[in-house]
C-alpha cells in the first residue's frame, strides 16, 4: 500500500469538505478498497472514513419506507431489516461474517461491482439513493460496471427502500470470491414486478424488463417459460460462460418468483 493520511470526521458536512480534494477518497468498511490499495491499484492521498458519522448508521422504517444509513454494515442490515426479509437474507450472505461486520451498504452501492448483491436489491426494490447533495432513483444510479451517477466526493448517506409486497433474492455463488456468479432479485412492488440481475451482464446490474412484463401479466414462474435470455453481452470468464450465465438468469428468476 502507498501511504496516505487517515481522517475520520464526525459529520457528513465535515466529510464532504475533506473529500473535496481530488486525491481524497471515502472509506466505508474498506472490504474492497483496502485489498485494492494493498495491491497498489488505488492510491488516494487522503482516506476519509465514514464510520464515525452517527447519522449514517442504522435501519429505520417509517411510512412504508425502510431507510438504511449509508455506513450501516451488512451485519447490521441482516440484523435489523426484518421489514424486508429478502434484504435480511441478501445482507446475511454477502462475503463472509467478518466482511459483513465491516462492509457497508453505501460502500457496496458506490463501488457497483458487477457481481455485488446490493445493486440488484436497490434496482429491484426501486430504491432511492440519498447522497449528501441529492436523491437519485436506483434506475438512474447504476452506470455500467463500477460506474455510478455519483460525482467526485459525493457520499451515499442513506438508501431508501419502499417496502415491497414480497421480494426474494437468489444468489448463485462464484465459488472462489463468494460474490454472485449471478444473482436475481425479484420484487413485487407497488409499481409492479421488478426483476434485477447482477453478476451476469457486461453492463453491470440491469432490469430484466421482459420478465417483469410477463410477471405483471401472470405473477407465476410459469409466466417465464416462454422467455429466453440471450448470452449476448453476458460476462464470460473462467467461472462461467455467457451461455451459462444466461441460463442462470432464467433459472434463478423462476426460483425467486416461486419463493415470493
Amino acid at each position, binding site marked *: 500500500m502507498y501511504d496516505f493520511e*487517515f481522517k475520520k470526521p464526525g459529520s457528513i458536512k465535515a466529510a464532504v469538505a475533506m473529500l473535496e480534494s481530488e486525491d481524497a477518497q471515502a472509506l466505508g468498511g474498506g472490504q474492497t478498497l483496502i485489498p485494492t490499495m494493498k495491491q497498489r491499484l488505488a492510491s488516494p492521498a487522503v482516506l476519509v472514513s465514514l464510520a464515525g458519522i452517527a447519522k449514517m448508521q442504522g435501519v429505520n422504517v417509517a411510512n412504508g419506507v425502510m431507510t438504511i444509513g449509508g455506513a450501516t454494515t451488512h451485519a447490521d442490515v441482516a440484523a435489523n431489516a426484518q421489514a424486508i426479509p429478502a434484504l435480511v437474507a441478501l445482507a446475511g450472505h454477502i462475503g463472509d461474517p*467478518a466482511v459483513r461486520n465491516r462492509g457497508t451498504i453505501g460502500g457496496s452501492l458506490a463501488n457497483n461491482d458487477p457481481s455485488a448483491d446490493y445493486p440488484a436489491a436497490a434496482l429491484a426494490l426501486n430504491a432511492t439513493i440519498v447522497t449528501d447533495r441529492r436523491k437519485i432513483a436506483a434506475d438512474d444510479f447504476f452506470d455500467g460496471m463500477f460506474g455510478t451517477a455519483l460525482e467526485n466526493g459525493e457520499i451515499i448517506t442513506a438508501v431508501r427502500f419502499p417496502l415491497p409486497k414480497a421480494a426474494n433474492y437468489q444468489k448463485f455463488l462464484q465459488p472462489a470470491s463468494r460474490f454472485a456468479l449471478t444473482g436475481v432479485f425479484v420484487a413485487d412492488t407497488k409499481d409492479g414486478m421488478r426483476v434485477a440481475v447482477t453478476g451476469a451482464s457486461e453492463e453491470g446490474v440491469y432490469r430484466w424488463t421482459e420478465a417483469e412484463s410477463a410477471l405483471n401479466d401472470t405473477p407465476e414462474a410459469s409466466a417465464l417459460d416462454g422467455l429466453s435470455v440471450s448470452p449476448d453481452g453476458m460476462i464470460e470468464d473462467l467461472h462461467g460462460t455467457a451461455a451459462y450465465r444466461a441460463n442462470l438468469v432464467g433459472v434463478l428468476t423462476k426460483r425467486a418468483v416461486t419463493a415470493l
Partner: protein
Amino acid sequence: MTKVSMTVNGKAVSGEVEGRTLLAEFLRNNLHLTGTHIGCDTSQCGACTVHVNGKMVKSCAILAQEADGAEVATIEGMANDDGSLGVIQAAFQEHHGLQCGFCTPGMVMAAADLLAKNTNPSEADIRSHLDGNICRCTGYHNIVKSIQAAASALS
C-alpha cells in the same frame, strides 16, 4: 506517523502508525502479538481474524487507525486467566481441530464470535460462519466437531 491507542486483550496499548498500517501489522509488528497470522492479500483466508468491539473482523482489512479507541481481542487473550486453555481452545485440542496451526487463531476467533451469538449452532450454522476462514489441513471436519463440542461445553 499518528498515535493510536486501543485496548488489546484487556490491556491499554498505544503506538505510532502510518495511515496505511493495518491492524494486523500493528498487532504483529508493534505489539509482537504474532498469533494473528497473515495468509493472503485479498482478505479472504481469515487467518488474521480478531475481534474489534466484540465483532470478528479481518485485521488485514482494517487500518490500525480505524481501530483507534477500540476493544480488540486476539488469540493471545483467549486462554483462561491461569493460562489454561479456554473452552474453545480446549475443544479444538480435544477434537484435533488443528494440524499445522496457521489458520487456527482465526478459526478460534471465528468460533468465539459464533458462540457468543448462537449458543446452539447447527452444523450448517457453523460451516456457514466459517465462510471467511480457510483451512488447508483438516477438511474442516474436526473444526466443526470442535466448535460443536465447545458449544455443548459452554451451554
